[in-house]
């Protein structure tokens, strides 16, 4: 137990530092990709998830793991994910983003956290009804991870998926690099890629596009590694914003540690437990509610759990990183943005319970453990971000 608490502190503080320094934001990853075709953070999310999947599959194959999180799959992932996606885009931060920015001094995100708590509490009160009216009819099958049912060993499967991700990426990059030479502007790069075979045949470079992309990938990775050799003043460099890829690598290492010692990485589950725990402190009979008592705390009594300590430590880590970088200040939101924090937070809290799972549980951890539920929930979350991005950018327009 003591070692688990220590692990929770190390992993939590570390995650807080990497999230803050890399500005690792899932809303940014999808919203700015839809709005401006800005894919820097999208790539960082892709790197972190793919690498984590590979390492988790190895840990699983060797038996060094504590268990998977695999809720039953069905329409719940789409519905809850969509609500969560809309909520996080409106609030301006995902579950992990809200945590690290709270540590950085944003009162906006403390308010978001508080209203996520309201979302968890309202969900808990309605849970008995939702179970029969929502979860039972909407759940199609038992939760499962492909690691467990795959006929090939998990690491082989994971490496195969990682290879496919890399190949797809290389093809997209290669296609826009070779196809864009004809003076086409940037915006057409991906849409020609989406148009599938047409572009490939006309350009006649079909076979070589992934190669071009892979070369760019290798060159980019080399340049990234070389970048470290060029740092002469490490103290000054540590205070500047870090490459999102550095954040992705750090997050992966911590996730592997967490997976072998405790569980997959989750945020809103522990937050929902925090809500119950705090309400218990002010005299609410939390254990009497089915969702808190028997689902979240699994009938073991309402108390502090290691994952609760871990996510609290994320706030601490982000605070330390922000103070170190000169990025800490108490930021007071404009009054006209209060609805974003309140409504967005509530939708994130309720949506993450209805899915179940947030961006970390589903997009990061869920995809990395190849959980069937999380594929569906990811589609729901990304669809929610897409819809909300188009609404917010209705005056200036979206790229896709």
């Amino acid at each position: 137990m003591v070692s688990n608490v220590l692990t929770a502190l190390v992993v939590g503080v570390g995650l807080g530092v990497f999230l803050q320094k890399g500005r690792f934001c899932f809303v940014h990853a999808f919203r700015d990709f839809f709005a401006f075709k800005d894919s820097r953070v999208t790539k960082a999310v892709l790197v972190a998830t793919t690498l984590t999947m590979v390492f988790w599959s190895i840990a699983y194959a060797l038996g060094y793991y504590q268990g998977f999180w695999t809720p039953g799959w069905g329409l719940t992932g789409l519905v809850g994910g969509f609500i969560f996606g809309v909520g996080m885009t409106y609030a301006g931060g995902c579950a992990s983003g809200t945590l690290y920015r709270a540590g950085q001094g944003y009162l906006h995100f403390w308010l978001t956290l508080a209203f996520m708590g309201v979302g968890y509490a309202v969900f808990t009160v309605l849970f008995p009804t939702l179970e029969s009216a929502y979860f039972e009819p909407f759940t199609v099958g038992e939760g499962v991870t492909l690691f467990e049912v795959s006929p090939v060993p998990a690491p082989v499967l994971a490496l195969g998926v990682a290879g496919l991700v890399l190949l797809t990426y290389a093809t997209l990059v290669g296609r826009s690099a070779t196809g864009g030479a004809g003076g086409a502007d940037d915006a057409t790069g991906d849409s020609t890629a989406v148009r599938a075979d047409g572009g490939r045949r006309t350009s006649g470079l079909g076979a070589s596009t992934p190669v071009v992309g892979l070369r760019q990938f290798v060159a980019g990775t080399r340049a990234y590694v070389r970048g470290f050799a060029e740092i002469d003043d490490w103290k000054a460099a540590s205070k500047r914003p870090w490459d999102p890829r550095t954040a992705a690598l750090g997050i992966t290492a911590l996730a592997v540690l967490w997976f072998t010692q405790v569980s997959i990485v989750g945020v809103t589950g522990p937050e929902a437990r925090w809500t119950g725990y705090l309400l218990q402190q002010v005299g609410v009979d939390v254990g009497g509610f089915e969702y808190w008592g028997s689902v979240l705390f699994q009938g073991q009594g309402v108390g502090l759990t290691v994952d609760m300590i871990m996510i609290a430590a994320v706030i601490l880590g982000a605070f330390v990183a922000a103070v170190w970088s000169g990025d800490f200040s108490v930021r007071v939101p404009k009054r006209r943005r209060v609805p974003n924090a309140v409504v967005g937070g509530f939708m994130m809290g309720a949506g993450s319970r209805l899915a179940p799972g947030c961006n970390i549980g589903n997009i990061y951890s869920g995809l990395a453990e190849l959980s069937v539920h999380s594929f569906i929930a990811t589609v729901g979350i990304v669809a929610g971000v897409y819809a909300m991005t188009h609404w917010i950018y209705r005056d200036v327009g979206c790229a896709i």
Partner: protein
Amino acid sequence: MTGPSLDDFVEMPDEVDDETAEQLADQATETQDMTGEVCPYPQVEAKKAIQSLDSGDLLVQETDHVPSTENVPRAVGDDADARVWRSGSGLYRIFLRKR
């Protein structure tokens, strides 16, 4: 433009020192107070303002939101040249000169 490539992974606007920041702030055609605002509103407002400015005009955003220092310049894209000033205490100025 070559579309998505790993080169734009770390593309950051140039940083300016305190003195340059003061000089630039005096030249501002339009100043937007974006303190307390989080994504994506600084991006949306920057895009709107840039569309209404003339070539050579300078738009200044004051912000305390770290990611804005990168994604506001990305949002206006080729419409403006971006530079950023970091105060070291959580306040930033983003200078966007319309091309």
